[in-house]
């Protein structure tokens, strides 16, 4: 007999996975002072964009801004890797504007790795986790495939689509979470052993095309904004040159080809049973479900400045390669296209997120957190925002401090996590602005006001960011206050002056009041009227800050009304449900007991949002809690 010395290392927090969730979780926890290990199967896969080479977009852009305001890295990495910036929904008001950036995928991943490597408290471990270390009640760390034990008080699992992942391309099935990368086969068992219920989801990718094999002159150009607007408050200017994207369309030829080969598509042959996202259907889905539509838009995205590939956004597919060849070559400009990698669908395990607390902690297993696609979401931004919150909560746990839960009227991230842990999901969950009932309060323009103070309090906002956030706040507040407190009176001189701008006032009006007029031109106004203080206040602002001031004043009535409504609704959020409550209460039907016991809401407000839980059940619960409170006092 001989004794093998087991390798053992001690950390505060172990993060499993180096994707967008893992990177945020590891960095924010390390910045907060925790000793963090990030375990990834492949160092260069950290920060990899597995799907399209873009960050942000509608609602997702808000998440990236929230991450930035909370001291995360996604915004900063995007600014450094971005090759086309565009603010979407520009004409639809500030509440729903979403910034988006096409990125150079290699530079993006390299930037994320660089940012992580800069953190002194963060160790990157290149290995695979075979199982979680735990005693059934609390997590103790993770066991690596070389038998090394990483001991930790908290473990954050961010394994994305890699749990028992299966890729489908036509009739061919391959185990793996991403092209050329292995699947995490055994971690699912660890999670199941902890009593977690797992489900199965599906997502897909489109084919990638060799850039040199297409003719861009046959496509529509899709330019970005003339002046790129950075995501991060830390960014002064966008470093990379900006490029064009292109648009092309599918047509009858492609649709007929797809129809003729439907029996070979895994989603239709029955090979895949898992649910895919309704908002991101495969091209075969689109052709079947919208049979009368003559063409479907394809957004052609460069994978990078030098990268030889193009990404065909809009035709995700798992049809066999010969059909993909035909479909791609039917697109204008793609007549001689060469497919560099065929599209495929991925099926993977996810954990039904109703089993998590609003901190993203697994209930009943102290110190175990899940974030990202493992919770049934889709998208880099959704993953990153969860990673950040899981990282913050793990950090708070190891510091023995209060958890961080963002409210629904405070952040899109709060809406998302509440949706996940309350409603669960049956398809990959994506953020939409319509999911946020207090949307007017969640515009990108107010994100630093809303969230940076939280990050500062938690000690994860570095000095430079804090300085910039405070400076921005000061400038914006000054311009806002001066607009509210500068008045024009309808004396002759002013009337004549305003008349030149086709403006008229009949009574004493504040500049804020004038700003509410849809046709008001601020620049012209400041040029015409002699109000040096106000002018200086606005000249100190950049374009984004000016928009923030104007929109806040313009929509103030609506914003204040929504704030009142949110405050009213939040009364029930403050009624905590005791953690150990038994739902076997007189008057509660078995169905209600089951639902409540599965989700185990933390507040009456959360309980009331569980689908199928009736107002009557809430009333009974409310009484029970009140009685308990009274008995205790």
């Amino acid at each position, binding site marked *: 007999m001989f004794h093998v010395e087991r390798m053992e290392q001690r950390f505060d927090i172990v993060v499993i996975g180096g994707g967008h969730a893992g990177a945020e979780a590891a960095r924010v926890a390390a910045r907060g002072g925790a000793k963090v290990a990030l375990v990834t199967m492949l160092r260069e896969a950290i920060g990899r964009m597995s799907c399209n080479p873009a960050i942000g977009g*509608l609602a997702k852009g808000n998440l990236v801004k929230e991450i930035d305001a909370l001291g995360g890295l996604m915004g900063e990495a995007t600014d450094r890797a971005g090759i086309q910036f565009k603010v979407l929904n520009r004409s639809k008001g500030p509440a729903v504007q979403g910034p988006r950036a096409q990125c150079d995928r290699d530079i993006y991943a390299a930037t994320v790795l660089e940012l992580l490597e800069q953190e002194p408290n963060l160790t990157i471990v290149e290995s695979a986790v075979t199982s979680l270390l735990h005693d059934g009640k609390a997590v103790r760390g993770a066991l690596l495939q070389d038998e090394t034990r990483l001991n930790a008080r908290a473990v954050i699992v961010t394994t994305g689509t890699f749990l028992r992942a299966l890729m489908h391309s036509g009739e061919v099935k391959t185990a793996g979470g991403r092209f050329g990368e292995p699947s995490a086969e055994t971690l699912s068992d660890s999670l199941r052993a902890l009593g977690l219920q797992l489900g199965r989801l599906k997502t897909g990718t489109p084919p990638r095309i060799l850039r040199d094999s297409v003719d861009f002159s046959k496509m529509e150009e899709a330019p970005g904004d003339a002046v790129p607007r950075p995501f991060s408050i830390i960014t002064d200017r966008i470093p990379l040159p900006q490029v064009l994207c292109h648009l092309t369309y599918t047509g009858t030829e492609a649709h007929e080809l797809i129809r003729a080969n439907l029996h070979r598509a895994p989603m239709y042959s029955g090979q895949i049973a898992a649910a895919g996202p309704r908002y991101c259907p495969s091209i075969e889905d689109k052709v079947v479900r919208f049979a009368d539509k003559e063409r479907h838009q394809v957004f052609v995205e460069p994978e990078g400045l030098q990268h030889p590939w193009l990404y065909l956004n809009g035709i995700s597919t798992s049809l066999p390669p010969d059909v993909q060849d035909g479909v791609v070559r039917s697109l204008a400009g793609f007549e001689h296209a060469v497919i560099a990698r065929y599209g495929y669908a991925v099926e993977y395990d996810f954990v039904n997120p109703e089993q998590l607390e609003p901190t993203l902690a697994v209930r009943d297993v102290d110190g175990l957190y899940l974030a990202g696609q493992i919770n049934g979401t889709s998208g880099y931004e959704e993953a990153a925002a969860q990673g950040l919150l899981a990282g913050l909560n793990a950090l708070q746990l190891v510091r023995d401090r209060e958890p961080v839960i963002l409210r629904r009227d405070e952040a899109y991230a709060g809406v998302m996590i509440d949706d996940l842990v309350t409603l669960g999901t049956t398809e990959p969950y994506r953020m939409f602005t*319509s999911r946020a009932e207090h949307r*007017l309060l969640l515009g990108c323009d107010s994100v630093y006001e809303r969230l940076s103070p939280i990050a500062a309090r938690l000690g994860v906002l570095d000095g430079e960011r804090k300085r910039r956030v405070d400076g921005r706040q000061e400038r914006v507040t000054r311009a806002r206050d001066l607009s509210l407190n500068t008045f024009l009176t309808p004396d002759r001189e002013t009337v004549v002056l305003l008349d030149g701008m086709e403006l008229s006032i009949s009574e004493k009006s504040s500049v804020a009041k004038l700003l509410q007029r849809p046709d008001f031109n601020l620049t012209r106004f400041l040029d015409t009227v002699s109000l040096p203080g106000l002018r200086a206040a606005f000249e100190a602002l950049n374009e984004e800050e000016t928009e923030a001031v104007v929109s806040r004043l313009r*929509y103030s009535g609506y914003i204040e009304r929504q704030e009142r409504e949110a405050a009213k609704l939040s009364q029930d959020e403050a009624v905590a449900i005791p953690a150990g409550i038994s739902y076997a209460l007189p*008057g509660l039907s078995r169905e209600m007991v089951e639902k409540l016991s599965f989700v185990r809401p933390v507040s009456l407000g959360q309980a009331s949002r569980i689908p199928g839980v009736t107002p*009557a059940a809430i*009333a009974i619960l409310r009484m029970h809690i009140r009685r308990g409170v009274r008995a205790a006092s």
Partner: protein
Amino acid sequence: MSSAAFDTIVAPATPVGRSALAVVRIDGPRTSAIIDTLTGGPSDQRIAVHRYLNHNGELLDDCVVVRYVAPHSFTGNDLAELTLHGNPLLVERVIAAAVELGARIAEPGEFTERAVLNGKLDLVQAESIADLIAARTTLQAKLSLTNLRGALSTKAQGIRESLLFVISRLEAALDFSEEGYDFISRAEARAKIEEAIAACRSISDTWRRGRATTAGLSLVILGRPNAGKSTLLNRLVGSERAIVTPIPGTTRDIVRETIEIGGLPVTIADTAGLRESSDVVEGIGIERAREAAAGADIVLYLIDATSGRTAEDERELATLDEPLLVWTKNDLAPAPGLAISAKTDAGVSELLARLDALVRDQFAVPESSATIVNERQRQAITACEQSLEVALQSLDAGYEEPIVVVDLYRASNALGVLTGAITNDDILTEIFSKFCIGK
């Protein structure tokens, strides 16, 4: 939740309709302030007091005010019960005054819910109260209100669905604006919203009939002294309810009796004869007669056929809105129109037939039509309509979709309250929705 989290609510605690007395209940922190304003005096320490209720300088009624101070009340909050005269119009006016002073109309079962929330009742007790009330109203119901309500819900649901159609398209235009679709044009959205407003109006227009069905109608008999008003009342009621003498001015206060006309309960009010009077008591009676006529659903104006239309008649008639002219004492003199002789019964059945037709035509609810039958429903439909108007204004002022939909959501939520399909959990709980208003 502390009791401070409650707002102040008001509702009738007795069934809607004619009765000797009616009780209105007010509950919540503003109770004392509302009562003080209405009674014109500061808080009275005594539990039950007789008081005159005035609002905006207008006398509403005299009543008995019973106050309960928290936590010693049915609900556990500050609570007051006003015992009024049993006239639905009075009850409505007192409730409207309370609402103007900061209360809101209670949801069904809300008083009981508060009692439960304050630990004054447990759920089983609350449920048995609900069952009791349900049984009583079942017995009382002469019309199948369930059918009516079903029709109303269906119609409200229809508006709601068309609203959700607009909302979903506007939302799609926000969340999928890059997909190259035109989800809905502003003109299309505008047309849909206007359609919904029109549908709301067609529902609010049913209020008069709906209220008549549940609360009954009021018919006031007016006329100069000795025109035969009391005789007619007695004739219609079938008993010597009002004192009849040949002396003008015998009837001084209003005498009321309820009979059924056209399938609805109609409360007939016999009033003091209209004339210039120096008698203080008679003068008050005449004033009350005029007030009653102003709030009446139907006014019968009696003209003595033996004296014909006098200048006084002309003056009174000019102030009335479409009164039904009835010539009396037809046995003594000929008359140019609808005429009766209460003495010989001539014309009385014709008059009744006329009233029957009038009630059926103007007040009865057509079979299975969408009709609102109470104040809560009326408020809900009004709130929906108002939100839709605001949404339309936002649309016309060029506001973007996220702003426009805010009020569309509000409108659809208001409709949800109307149909009972509540999503806003702090308003109603299912278990309490079985309760009638005010209990």
